[in-house]
């Protein structure tokens, strides 16, 4: 039952780097797969030799196991000239893919988990922001999220108030659009493409499309690695492992409106892979 919804989504299973030296053996939704490059004409097969569709989008190879896959979402900023696109490789985390997404949507943890980078005590307050589920695209959006950050990006100098929009276009993808210090009229885009290995384990592919003419590619990747691996030790220590969709199990505050909307959205769509619910 929990696979019914999940199998008709697209998932990142490789990036443009990892196929250069040979195929990638991986697992998606409990199914072992082989991804063979080159990335722009990649093939995806399982142990029985069945082939699955593959497309190269946002510097990653995406595949789906379903017979009636939904359309893969767009991130138009990825194609804007002048932006640097940064696929960051993959980090394995022993957690529910849904917990990984929910952590990405959360800002109240910045002073405690990303101390002196994305937040610092005593500036811990999360002021009200807007959350909606946009009917036309059926996506969860949080807008006008503001937080004071000592080191918001590699391109930031001193601390700044950062503004965020968050977007969940699919159960295991989260995108954030944040203040871009060198180009204030634009937004930097940072996303995680979460590949569910199983309900309790995932491979997370961080990706960015930003304006930064100063930093080296390595510096940008490392900044993202630093942030994400700081979250990893939280993610591996949350219980229950699967994300509870019953609101009585875990107590949200006003700062958690995005996660509340996300859990409600999952419940409404029956997207139960990685979730704990009576209905799964």
């Amino acid at each position, binding site marked *: 039952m929990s696979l019914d919804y999940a199998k008709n989504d697209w998932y990142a299973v490789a990036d443009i*780097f990892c196929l250069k030296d040979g195929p990638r053996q991986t697992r998606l939704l409990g199914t072992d797969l082989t991804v063979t490059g080159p990335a722009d004409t990649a093939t995806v097969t399982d142990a029985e030799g069945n082939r699955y569709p593959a497309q190269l989008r946002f510097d990653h190879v995406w595949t789906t196991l379903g017979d009636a896959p939904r359309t893969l979402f767009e991130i138009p900023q990825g194609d804007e000239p002048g932006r640097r696109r940064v696929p960051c490789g993959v980090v394995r985390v022993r957690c529910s893919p849904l917990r990984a997404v929910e952590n990405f949507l959360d800002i109240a943890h910045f002073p405690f988990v990303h101390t002196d980078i994305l937040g610092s005590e005593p500036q811990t307050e999360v002021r009200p922001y807007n959350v909606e589920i946009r009917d036309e695209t059926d996506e969860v959006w949080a807008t006008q999220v503001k937080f004071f950050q000592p080191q918001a990006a590699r391109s930031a100098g001193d601390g700044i108030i950062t503004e965020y929009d968050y977007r969940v276009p699919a159960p295991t993808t989260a995108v954030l659009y944040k203040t871009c210090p060198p180009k204030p009229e634009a937004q930097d885009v940072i996303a995680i493409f979460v590949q569910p290995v199983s309900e309790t384990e995932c491979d997370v592919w961080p990706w960015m499309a930003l304006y930064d003419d100063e930093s080296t590619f*390595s510096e940008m990747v*490392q900044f993202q690695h630093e942030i994400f691996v700081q979250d990893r030790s939280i993610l591996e220590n949350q219980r229950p492992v699967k994300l509870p969709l019953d609101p009585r199990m875990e107590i949200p505050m006003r700062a958690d409106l995005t996660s509340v909307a996300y859990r409600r959205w999952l419940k409404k769509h029956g997207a139960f892979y990685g979730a704990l619910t009576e209905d799964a």
Partner: protein
Amino acid sequence: MTAFTLYNYVLSGNCYKIRLMASLLGLDYETIAVNFYPGFEHRSDAMLALNPAGTLPVLTAGDTVLTDTQAMLGWLALNHDPSRQWYPAADPLLGPEVLQWLAFSGRLTNSAGLARLHAMLNWPVDGEAARRAAVRDLRELELILTDRVFEGRTWLVGDRPTIADIACFPYVALSPDAGLEHDGYPAIRNWLYAVRSLPGFTTMPGIHELHELREPADG
């Protein structure tokens, strides 16, 4: 004028040993980010020309090029520690003890460090064998640190922290990244806390700040 240049990867425990020691000594240094992962840049022709072993970190200072982490810790202590306490190299008893722990730290890199690379970045190694070796190493460290408790001592060598403690600290502190928790190692837990409480201590991802040492936000 910075003290040295460090070819660095933020998630590398070995690179962190140097970042940590420099922070404890209050040193300024230049960092060059090397795309260890996913780019495997440490094996590029340019990096191999600098370090034929193809490893990180690499430390350069003037004409000096060091490619072994233990050697770098020795260099930092001998060149930038006027107190001569971080590496008592001239002490006939303490000096060799430090060398023995530096060797042990190399074993930790290949056990707990490798188990972590396997668990986190899918390194193509035998993760189970690395974990078993890590448990052996953690138990050995727990035994010696328990001796230290009996002796009323905190640090691995002598009565002060030395590069022996700094060399062994990262992969022990990070072993939970590979699912190796510290529940069975109370002496290790106390020693980790002592290292994290040192003035000038700095963290890396997977090792959290001691928030208890900060000013309380509110009641």
